[in-house]
């Protein structure tokens, strides 16, 4: 496992195989929390933190508990359990050690439990048979990609809110169209790096 391979995984998950715009995971917070830049940044920070931690924990559970017992078919439910526990633990830990960050992230922290990108990264890790470092990097990169796209999109939606949009496209519809155009734009990164 060389450093350059990890860098390629990072670049690939952030830009080429972006979780939101190329794999269509985590669309719910992507549309739901992107109305304001501030809350988007909060959500992005919380998700980055949890997703990295969750990909590490799910890798450990999969490798040390599920695989030796031949219980791969229990992955989904076991991963949900792991993610819920990790989110709750992070919430408690943060409330104690960093009340400021806790107040910034606020309600978004528990919301991440049901973010499908977090479950997606865990399941993709097992499908692609990543090792520990690859899993961590994949989770971190995916989270970074999610955070970047969410913040970009919320900045656009803040401008759309005051733009002169034709009546039928107002509100969520122009948001969907913008997201689609963003996904098209991200297609341009295809072929930048290729994962073996």
């Amino acid at each position, binding site marked *: 496992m060389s450093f350059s391979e990890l860098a390629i995984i990072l670049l690939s998950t952030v830009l080429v195989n972006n979780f939101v715009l190329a794999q269509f995971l985590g669309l719910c917070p992507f549309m739901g929390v992107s109305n304001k830049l501030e809350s988007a940044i909060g959500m992005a920070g919380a998700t980055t933190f949890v997703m990295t931690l969750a990909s590490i924990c799910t890798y450990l559970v999969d490798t040390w*508990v599920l695989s030796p017992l*031949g*219980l791969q078919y*229990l992955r989904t439910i*076991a991963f949900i*359990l792991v993610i819920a526990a990790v989110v709750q633990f992070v919430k408690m*830990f943060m409330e*104690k050690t960093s009340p400021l960050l806790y107040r910034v992230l606020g309600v978004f922290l528990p919301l991440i439990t049901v973010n499908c990108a977090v479950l997606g990264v865990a399941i993709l890790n097992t499908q692609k048979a990543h090792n520990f470092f690859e899993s961590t990097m994949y989770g971190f990169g995916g989270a970074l990609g999610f955070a970047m796209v969410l913040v970009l999109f919320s900045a656009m939606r803040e401008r759309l809110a005051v733009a002169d949009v034709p009546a039928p496209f107002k509100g969520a519809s122009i948001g969907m169209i913008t997201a689609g155009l963003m996904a098209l734009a991200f297609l341009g990164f295809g072929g930048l790096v290729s994962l073996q």
Partner: protein
Amino acid sequence: MIDFILQNPIFSALIALGGLSALFGAVLGFAAVKFKVEGDPIVDQIDALLPQTQCGQCGHPGCRPYAQAIADGDPINKCPPGGQATINALADLLDVEAPSLDSEHGEHSDVKKVAFIREDECIGCTKCIQACPMDAILGAAKHMHTVIVDECTGCDLCVEPCPVDCIDMIPVQTDLKTWKWDLPATNQKPVFHVVASEVNLIASDLGRGAAFDTAKATDETGKAA
């Protein structure tokens, strides 16, 4: 035993999931005890008694920081919008002598006032908007500003920065909309303490800057009658 478990995958599944759940439950239970956050209930109680004008006349950036400062030993007589009624309620809560209002921080007025911008004189400098702690002033640069009466707590902070002196503090007339129940003042004996806290809750439901309404309501309704 191990052979038995391995031959019956349902048991290994149950044990694995049950074990994981128990493990996470134990970790979370441990975390709940280890990372328990002790809130400071006295700060919340003090904050509930303050008028929530967020005017900063006490020298703190808002009512909650002042509540924190009182809990840390700051004098309780620095709140002009609250006036004597708030000081008495605080003294009652903290079981200290009620001092009179420290005039260094401003005068308490018994009549509720709101800011009013004489709009044809407004030059649109936005200085009052920046000064307003309640975001009660509407407007943009080089456009006329106006005050949202419902949001204004009458804290005076916008009057000083205005370069053309076009902001007046006008008293609010008591009419059907602004009249409040004539509730007993909050400086009663400890027997009334529970009642007093309820009074404040109701008053703050009625609108911002409410703690002093309980005291003020007495003379205003007296006048109205």
